[in-house]
């Protein structure tokens, strides 16, 4: 028995240490590295002490440690933010408690704090797999809670547990679907994590690096059919400043991104929903000229989308686009895109020649495209390094480059020829999943192309399409030579089984984000509206169901009272003594129990003896007179009975 108790204690301590380790992992964003190390060390110490069956650290030492750590947390409050501070303090409290755990009520507190911390994990993580992990941690905590109160011999009854889960499931779903979505009580802090995706700077080679990343950038659901691949140019950034080597987003645009475009009367021919992955950037994605969007997203005059704060959680928004090119906003914009840095004399020469040959801008662009496709230009993921006159070196020497090289060179040529042009960064194409009905756009689809001003609109021009049309029509893999594909796909990724698994996981994740994360106020309102439409029908069926349940309950009650032959006297006692009678050992008779109580609580001795005598008379002799007296005795001494109940409950 004693060893069993010890075993149970050990199990509980282990499970709590495991929960705190997991919490530490899940909440690591909220902690500085050295704090994580200290916590981990403390937990390890606790684990060791469990295995060696030593007592925990003394309370004094724990208090001292916790005090010091709490003070450092407080000093860094400004840096960490209130939310993180709260999480830090809570986890600190839980760990300190675990280190010096002594009493049952402390363990109870610990379990409840764990519940709270586990719920807090959802502030920082919404990923499906992590959600599963959090659920697992929750289950462990729940089990430890159960073990805490269960007698040490009892085992978990799986059948009963399963039944319990089945019963709670509809309630759970109903709460998820119908509970009002309150706005968050606190500001979720911006996390200092490296942003992913396209940057505000387009270095030579930055896109080459990006395409080797297989992770998801965003997903798109189209309201209608999937548009042809040639139209799937997802605009994300406009690079307008060129310093001879790298392209940058103009400072004006960085600040102006929050302006809303004036509502144009352009038709919105294409409507779609985008679920963007967390990128820690404000920039978002749209096709051609976005016209309308859901309220959480801004459309800038130059047709770019952005959110009002960095995307730190998956973000879903609805856009409708017109498939016409973006309109010139101002004269200033044109001037901005005619600036050329010095250098690259050969390119300059080449541009002048073209300009003389083709005075019309679209003819010139056409000619440029033909130049790229006729001359021996190569599309490569590993272009050679270029010198100081990078455009010259690329155009007339190496002839080998990636999309950013072609876009950059084209834009410079066009600018030299007096045509306003800029480089657009974004994504091209995507992976269409017909069964799930969504387009997955990965970082691998990152792309750069050119827009030039023609008749007051920014005409898109993709020089890559001239060099490697497969890139546009099919995918990057098919556009690259055999030996470079290996760069995109490390060996392990090529395993069919793994690939399938990854695909399936991605699809699951998609449904998760659409149905669970995407279930926002709007959808809930829609659901309520649908429910409202069926209100009469539902009310009827609910009424019918309700009455059936009531009839069944009544029936059960009636049939039970038929077999329920608890004598009146016992019923009376149960009514007045209630739970105190539950303390009676199962096999002990009621009157024997009352006499035991009389012995144990001398204050109630006389009363209990009187009660027992009357009870025996009423029960065993079936004496109605005694029964009435018993009722009187119970009714007139409610205060004494109350005291007795408390006395029994407390022992």
């Amino acid at each position: 028995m004693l060893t069993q108790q010890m075993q149970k204690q050990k199990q509980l301590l282990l499970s709590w240490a495991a929960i705190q380790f997991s919490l530490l992992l899940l909440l690591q964003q909220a902690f500085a590295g050295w704090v994580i190390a200290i916590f981990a060390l403390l937990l390890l110490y606790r684990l060791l002490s469990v295995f060696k069956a030593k007592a925990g650290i003394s309370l004094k030492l724990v208090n001292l440690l916790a005090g010091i750590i709490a003070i450092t947390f407080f000093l860094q409050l400004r840096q960490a933010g209130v939310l993180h501070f709260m999480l830090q303090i809570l986890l600190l409290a839980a760990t300190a408690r675990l280190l010096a755990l002594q009493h049952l009520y402390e363990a109870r507190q610990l379990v409840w704090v764990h519940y709270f911390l586990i719920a807090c994990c959802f502030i920082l993580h919404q990923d499906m797999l992590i959600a599963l992990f959090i659920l697992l941690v929750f289950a462990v905590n729940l089990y430890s809670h159960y073990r805490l109160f269960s007698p040490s011999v009892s085992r978990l009854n799986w059948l009963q547990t399963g039944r319990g889960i089945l019963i709670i499931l509809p309630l759970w779903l109903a709460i998820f679907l119908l509970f009002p979505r309150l706005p968050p009580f606190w500001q979720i802090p911006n996390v200092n994590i490296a942003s992913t995706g396209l940057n505000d700077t387009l270095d030579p080679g930055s896109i080459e690096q990006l395409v080797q990343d297989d992770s998801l950038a965003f997903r798109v659901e189209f309201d209608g059919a999937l548009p042809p691949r040639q139209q799937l140019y997802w605009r994300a950034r406009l690079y307008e400043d060129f310093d001879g080597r790298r392209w940058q987003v103009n400072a004006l645009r960085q600040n102006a991104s929050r302006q809303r475009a004036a509502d144009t009367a352009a038709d919105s021919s294409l409507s779609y929903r985008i679920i963007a992955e967390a990128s820690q950037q404000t920039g978002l994605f749209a096709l051609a000229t976005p016209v309308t969007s859901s309220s959480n997203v801004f459309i800038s005059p130059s047709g770019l989308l952005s959110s009002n704060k960095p995307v730190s959680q998956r973000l879903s928004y609805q856009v409708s686009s017109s498939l016409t090119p973006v309109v010139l906003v101002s004269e200033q914009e044109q001037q901005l895109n005619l600036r050329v840095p010095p250098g690259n004399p050969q390119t300059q020469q080449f541009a002048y020649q073209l300009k003389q040959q083709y005075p019309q801008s679209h003819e010139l662009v056409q000619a440029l495209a033909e130049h790229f496709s006729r001359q021996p230009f190569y599309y490569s993921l590993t272009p050679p390094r270029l010198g100081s006159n990078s455009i010259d070196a690329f155009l007339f020497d190496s002839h080998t480059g990636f999309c950013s090289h072609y876009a950059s060179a084209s834009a410079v040529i066009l600018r030299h020829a007096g045509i306003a042009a800029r480089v657009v960064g974004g994504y091209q194409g995507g992976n269409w999943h017909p069964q799930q009905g969504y387009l997955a756009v990965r970082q691998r689809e990152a792309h750069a192309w050119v827009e030039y001003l023609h008749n007051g609109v920014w005409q898109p021009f993709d020089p890559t399409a001239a060099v490697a049309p497969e890139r546009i029509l099919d995918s990057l893999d098919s556009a690259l030579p055999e030996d470079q594909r290996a760069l995109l796909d490390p060996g392990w990724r090529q395993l069919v089984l793994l690939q399938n698994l990854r695909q399936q996981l991605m699809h699951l994740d998609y449904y998760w984000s659409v149905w669970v994360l995407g279930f926002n106020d709007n959808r809930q309102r829609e659901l309520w509206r649908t429910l409202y439409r069926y209100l009469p029908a539902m009310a009827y069926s609910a009424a019918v169901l309700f009455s059936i349940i009531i009839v069944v309950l009544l029936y059960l009650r009636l049939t039970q009272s038929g077999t329920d032959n608890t004598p009146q006297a016992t019923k009376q006692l149960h009514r007045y003594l209630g739970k105190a009678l539950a303390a009676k050992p199962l096999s002990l008779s009621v009157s024997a129990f009352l006499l035991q109580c009389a012995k144990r609580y001398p204050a109630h001795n006389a009363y209990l003896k009187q009660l027992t005598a009357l009870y025996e008379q009423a029960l065993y002799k079936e004496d109605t007179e005694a029964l009435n007296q018993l009722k009187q005795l119970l009714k007139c001494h409610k205060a004494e009975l109350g005291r007795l109940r408390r006395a029994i409950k407390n022992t």
Partner: protein
Amino acid sequence: MLTQLHNVEQSLNQVILGKSSQIRLALCCLLAEGHLLLEDLPGMGKTTLAHALANSLGLSYRRVQFTSDLLPGDLVGMSIYDARSQQFRFQAGPVFSQVLLADEINRASPKTQSALLEAMEEKQVSVDGETRALPTPFFVIATQNPLFHAGTSALPESQLDRFMFRLSLGFPDHQAEHQLLQRDSSTSRLELLTEQLNTEQLRALQQQVPKVAASDALIDYLLALVNSSRHRSDMLPLSPRASKAILRAAKAFALINQRDYVTAADVQQVFPYVAEHRLAPSSDAQESRLSQLLLLQTPCPI
């Protein structure tokens, strides 16, 4: 009359020291008109108890020492030819007495055992085609040595069932044995016992037993207790005869405790002694493991 019964109990307590609960149970068995089986090691005071009971109740008392060659005729008696009157005359055996002490009953052959058992159940014996009634009250106190002793043949379940109670006296405690050794001899004390309760009074008391009230709820509890033995493989089920015996014993117990109604506690008190030898015939009377188990496992809602 209950006061006289109390006196009987007190005087018995002076003869057999430190065994008041067993004495009360033995009296209870007598009031319930049941037979008593005492199982114990030799020399524990079984015979003394039987003798003292008979003496203090003013009953005629016979003792039969059972051996393996004891014949039924030795017990019930036989017809002997009387040369003078030239006819057979029935010579009554020791069974024709009010208290019969059947000592070491499990040493006799099964045939003899069953002759006694017929007498116990029917309160009559049939000899030479003639049925003869036994005197009333008729009370058999049988003793038996624990079964593992040499030369014993166990009573079959059906015959054990005829005994309402099985008791074991057990060793006396230190104080009681000390007192026992200090005084001269118990037999002299036995002779000092006077009749405290005459036969009519005993009859009257026995007739009061069925009138003791047993409520529906109590009978339900008793049945729950009995039923709990009926679907188990580790014990024999209790028969309706057993449940009748339990109720009757509980009633007698209530009467001795000067109540006119049976409580659940009464049932719980007598249950081990009435039930254990029916649940497990070969068990040791000292520990009533199975019946205690049933008592523990059956909820008592009243």
